[in-house]
């Protein structure tokens, strides 16, 4: 009997980010318009495995999901042991642009979730002309913090378990248990302090209030989609952000939380397919 293989290929890309050599892991499937997918804080590209295996999407899009440095199978840069990891607007933007440039992607679509959604807003502010369209999931210009990130990295609390325990509440109760627990499993596997380091960008460095007003959707279309059960980036946060951006398309997704692509792939599909169809023209 032939082996049952997912229609996805994983590879490593050698590239520099801000002059520092990196080895980035990515998975890809499909052909056509490049669609680069950005995972959430403290997670990795496995969150997009259902999208990567969806023929309705991969027949028109070359879907690429890469692990940020420090995440998944992308190793941290040499010397990581001598400092504390902190993601910034600058370093995150540089990583995305380096990946797209090194892969020679021609005007890709970028879709990101949570911190990935926030940085997509920054791409729309600062680099819109480089992209065909931008999709921000669970994104807003700013969100009120709801816990102290000091709990995420300390020797007396298991980092993986506390990260998963915190974000479990962001998953909608309607999401199938198998997908809920797979989403949480990824959070349990993050390196020590990585989720906390990502949230430095989210909470401190990446405040985009006022800045989103500079987004010009005529240069690059922008789509915002947020799950109604996301109390971290609430529907109100997203709608408030959308009101400042003329021409943006915004949707609130029912029965979905903070991780639409991994917590409820079938439900997310109902919302993302029409967006991708519009982008593909």
């Amino acid at each position, binding site marked *: 009997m032939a082996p049952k293989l997912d229609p996805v290929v994983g590879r490593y890309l050698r590239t520099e980010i801000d002059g520092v050599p990196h080895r980035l892991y990515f998975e890809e499937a499909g052909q056509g318009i490049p669609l680069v997918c950005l995972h959430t804080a403290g997670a990795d590209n496995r969150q997009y495995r259902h999208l990567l295996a969806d023929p309705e999407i991969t027949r028109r899009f070359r879907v690429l999901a890469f692990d940020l440095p420090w995440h998944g199978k992308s190793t941290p840069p040499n010397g990581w042991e001598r400092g504390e990891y902190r993601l910034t607007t600058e370093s995150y933007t540089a990583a995305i642009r380096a990946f797209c440039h090194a892969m020679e992607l021609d005007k890709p679509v970028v879709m990101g979730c949570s911190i990935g959604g926030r940085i997509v807003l920054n791409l729309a502010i600062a680099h819109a002309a480089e992209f065909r369209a931008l999709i921000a999931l669970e994104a807003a210009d700013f969100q009120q913090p709801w816990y102290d990130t000091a709990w995420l990295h300390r020797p007396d609390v298991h980092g993986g378990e506390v990260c998963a325990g915190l974000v479990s509440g962001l998953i909608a*109760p309607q999401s199938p248990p198998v997908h809920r627990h797979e989403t949480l499993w990824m959070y349990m596997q993050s390196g020590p302090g990585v989720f906390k380091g990502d949230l430095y960008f989210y909470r401190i460095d990446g405040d985009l209030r006022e800045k989103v007003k500079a987004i010009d959707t005529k240069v690059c279309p922008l789509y915002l989609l947020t799950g109604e059960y996301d109390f971290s980036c609430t529907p109100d946060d997203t709608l408030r952000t959308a009101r400042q951006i003329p021409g943006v398309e915004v949707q609130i997704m029912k029965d979905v939380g903070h991780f639409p692509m991994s917590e409820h792939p079938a439900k997310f599909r109902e919302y993302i397919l029409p967006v991708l169809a519009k982008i593909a023209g």
Partner: protein
Amino acid sequence: MSPADRFAALPDLLSGDPDLRRRGRWLSVDCQVDIGPEPFFLSIRDGALVALDRGQRLMRSTAFTFRATDEAWTNHWKAVPEPGWHDLFALTKRGSASMEGDLRPLLQHLQYFKDLLALPRRQPVGA
């Protein structure tokens, strides 16, 4: 049936969930959970609830307290809670709940506590 009455069934609900007790097997702590105005004192040993004392206990010492309004618990314990009521931190963020004390045992066993405090969801209202 009041929210406090529903919470009083916690020992039976936990007894009926051996998997949750297994996940709490490294946890032994005394803590307080307020259901509206009514305090409950939980004594947890190796993940099992060995005592649930309802009502005020003078000078009872506990590691931490989690408290929420009757409205918050009522909504939290709906079979399918609505957005904003579905998680303990959704409750604290909206200002309907709070926590205080030594939160370390809570954070060390966070999913256990979330699941423990959601158990009344399984019990039909009026049961």
